């Protein structure tokens, strides 16, 4: 006889879910992954660890790579259908297996790519060791992970020192450790974008990555030319590239120094020093950004980021052209004026409550008085 517990049959209302797209930033993510493949992945043979539903397959195939996919039997079911429909020239081999111990010969591949896989393995060191054995000497292992600085307690979020130490012990070179996908939201949210990232308004804006090329272009530019060169703590996740070759020419020292310098500069809020470490800087950077934010929704994006940064005490003015700065500042000042208006009205209501006055009498005066108060409030200078 089977037992049915009443909880199994009980129904309760579900919490309200965000009603935006399931992955509002998917198009940006795909564009970033495509870039990652062309920049870091070496061919022709690639082991795609944790292939999942095959969402990340496209950029690999577009780059002309020969892909072998590994995942547990369950997830593979979905990707089999996709793979079966591919033309014979794009053959993808699928192997069922453990992502932390992918089946195959030593040195069988030129690269291993493992996105979103690190949280799925029991111990990151064992998994990355197994992945590095799957590549030939000189091959690379590319994976992403939660950012250690934002998730210090996560066992799947190795820090700089740990990675360097591990690489040295394993005869590998840490080629890159970079923040990645700072604006993607999703399962590795960016703590620095809190509370902005929690608003529906921001998510609604992100939804336009799917349909607004100008916004996508801005997002890609910021990710690739700014974020990727900053300290890993500016994003919820990092990208790690390890080469199967010992560090013979001091790469680790260089990387560690650069990250330390970036860390110091950004902690000191020395944006000039930060900018010095970016691949595009000075007038060139401002001109590029100026062009990108001409589009309406790109301007919304920058304006909201500007507001958010300023509220956190970070001035991003020097990255913007004078006219964009002025525009963003005008929005910020208007927001402050609205807040001052409400602070005044709320203060009045509280005081009325403390007397025998009906606070309702005060509340109903907000509407007719708002514009008069706003016109008298001293405006902050942009």
């Amino acid at each position, binding site marked *: 006889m089977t037992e049915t517990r009443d909880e199994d049959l009980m129904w309760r209302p579900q919490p309200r879910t965000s*009603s935006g797209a399931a992955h509002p930033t998917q198009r940006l993510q795909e564009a970033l992954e495509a870039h990652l493949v062309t920049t870091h992945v070496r061919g022709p043979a690639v082991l795609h660890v944790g292939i999942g539903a095959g969402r990340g397959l496209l950029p690999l195939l577009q780059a002309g790579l020969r892909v072998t996919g590994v995942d547990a039997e369950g997830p593979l079911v979905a990707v089999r259908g996709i793979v079966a429909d591919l033309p014979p020239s794009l053959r993808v081999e699928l192997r069922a297996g453990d992502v932390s111990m992918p089946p195959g010969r030593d040195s069988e591949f030129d690269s291993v790519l493992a996105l979103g896989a690190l949280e799925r393995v029991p111990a990151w060191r064992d998994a990355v060791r197994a992945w590095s054995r799957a590549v030939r000497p000189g091959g690379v292992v590319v994976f992403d992970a939660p950012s250690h600085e934002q998730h210090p307690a996560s066992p799947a979020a190795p820090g700089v020192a740990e990675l360097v130490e591990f690489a040295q012990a394993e005869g590998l070179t840490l080629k890159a450790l970079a923040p990645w996908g700072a604006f993607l939201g999703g399962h590795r949210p960016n703590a620095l974008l809190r509370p902005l990232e929690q608003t*529906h308004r921001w998510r609604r804006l992100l939804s336009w990555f799917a349909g607004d090329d100008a916004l996508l272009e801005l997002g890609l530019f910021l990710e690739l030319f700014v974020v990727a060169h900053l300290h890993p703590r500016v994003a919820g996740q990092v990208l790690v590239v390890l080469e199967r070759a010992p560090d013979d020419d001091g790469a680790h020292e260089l990387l560690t120094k650069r990250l330390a310098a970036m860390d110091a500069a950004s902690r000191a809020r020395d944006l000039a020093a930060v900018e010095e470490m970016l691949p595009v800087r000075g007038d060139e950077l401002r001109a590029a950004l100026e062009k990108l934010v001409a589009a309406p929704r790109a301007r*919304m994006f920058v304006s909201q980021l500007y507001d958010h940064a300023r509220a956190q005490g970070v001035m991003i003015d020097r990255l913007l052209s004078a006219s964009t700065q002025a525009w963003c500042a005008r929005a910020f000042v208007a927001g402050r004026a609205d807040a001052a208006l409400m602070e005044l009205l709320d203060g009045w209501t509280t005081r009325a409550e403390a007397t025998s006055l009906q606070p*309702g009498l005060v509340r109903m005066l907000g509407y007719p008085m708002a514009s008069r108060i706003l016109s*008298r409030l001293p405006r902050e200078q942009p």
Partner: protein
Amino acid sequence: MTQPKKRAVISFLWPAQQHVLQELCRREPGLVVVGHGRVVPDVEFASFVSWFARVPADLTHTRTEAQRAGLVSTFTEACGGALGESPAALIPWEIVSESLTLRAALDAVCVDYDVALVVLSEDLTPVGRTVADWANRRGVPCVHVLHGIPLLSPYTVHARPVAQTFVVFGERCVEAYEDVGADDLEFHVLGNPAWDALPTVRGQRASLAQQTRAKYGIGESARLIVFATTWDASQTAFADPAIHRNTLVPVLRAYQQLLAAGVDVELVVKDRVNADIEAEKRQFRALVESLGMADCKIVHAYDNGLHFLAAADVIVAVNSNMLVEAMHLGVPAINLLNDMGLMMGPSFDEQSGVIEVDDETLPAALQLVLTQPGVAEQMAQRHLQRVAHYNVGAHDGGSTRRVAKLLQQKMTPRPPTRGAWQDLDEPRREDELVRSGLVGMLSGTPRVVLDVGCGRGATGALVRERFEGCRVIGVEADAALAAQAQARLQQVLVGSLGAVDLGAAGVVPGSLDAVLFVDVLARLADPWRALLQVRALLATDGDVVLSVPNVRNLLTIGGLLGGSWTYEEQGTPGIRHLRFFTRRDVATMAQQTGYRIVQEELVFDPRLQPIFEAATSFPTEVNGDRFSLKDIDREELAELCAATLYFRLRKAEGSTS
């Protein structure tokens, strides 16, 4: 003795949403609407103005004087010097006075009525705020039915609602309030009653478009741009006092460019009256001339937007709910973003299919939508796929019903009434019911009849009258009723069928020509055993004639589907009913207890008979409040409209007792 006060709802709903009150009154018979503004047809309506007029002027004056000092000192303190000299000069005293008068008038309504609910469309201006605040203080439930979607994040005073129960159109509205931290409100996502006609309008779009084009002389082949103007409410520092002109000019310019490019296009500017319509018309003409567009054909109108919407090939508006209306109709929608929209937006999400542009990108967007094949269709498709996120009533047009249902739930409960159960202890007060139709079903000339549950003996007496010399033996458990029946029947046994001594009364197996169960089986704990018991006493060709209340009555099941199963002293379900039968269930019971049905009749429920008579072709369907029943043939419809079912049974052949 004074009459109890009538129940009333105080309504400050806008005309476009007022039909919710008709639906509410349909559900709550006897409810009075004390309304502000337009009279609501088909309801008992009392104009709020009459209470307003009755408030003595000195009352509010005195109170204003008393409160003036308090308002000045608390405001001056709250300003803390931020507003310069004499900030209290900003307080609009005439509005304070009006608000106090309004409160006094609301109090006066309570003298005349039992106010069960306050409902309003806006909770922002002094009137709406006063009404909501008054309701909160007085403990009257208050429901705020939003009149628009806050497409831009609710700013300043918009973010401080007073009414806590909030009817919104779709999840998009909830997003807006959650973003400003006003998420402790009680949200009900029910849709906009004012938009319930839109699904129908969508179906009639072609003919409406034709009418509109004919009325305004718009060319048949011309593509039509409709621009809905906007205005400035000055409630935020983001506001642009010149927004009307600043958003109109780019649209006129874009139209000029399309004309220059040789596109066969016309423009309707759907304007809104602010103060002086003639002056505004002159200003508009002057603006058009200043742009060198005096010769361009432009329809400048202040009429209902829906007709223009139906005729439009594309609509342009500024963060306006009219764009959401366009989504309902599948009309391509373009949101024109001014600085306010750019700084406080985005208003729409990507899935909505709404195109968002600024001044510079507007001409190209219009050109794309109007001339590129497939673009408009694709936008329309996306609008319709996403519109329910903005208004949950977008496809079913059922928001009026949902909102009325919520209002009904929110009303203060009626004063406790006497429950039907209290009658159980009282002597039975049911009307004497003579089921002559049931007596008419008896066959032959019965000589001995058992009337089980004979009550006061009315039906049994009729049997005696019809069949001369017939002996009617009554069985009745209620001693008081039995005593009355004694006078009408030859013999009355007091007690239940299982308990009385039928043998002593001369009733032996095979001796009964007929047994009556008049409205009795539903009241027995074990009607099956009763049927078995009388079967043994029945003659071979004897009749059992019975009536049961029809539980498969449309009103009964409609009530049940609607959430109530209310016991009534008379009617179905009755307070004394223990068992409930449908027509099919009686057949089953008869078969299981050794009978066959030889005749059936039904008695219509007078409330439902019109439904039966209105049905002319079958199969038909019945559409209830929220349910519909399909594939109903004539016989089944009769059953659904019946109050009572009559049966004549005979012993089944070959069965033994």
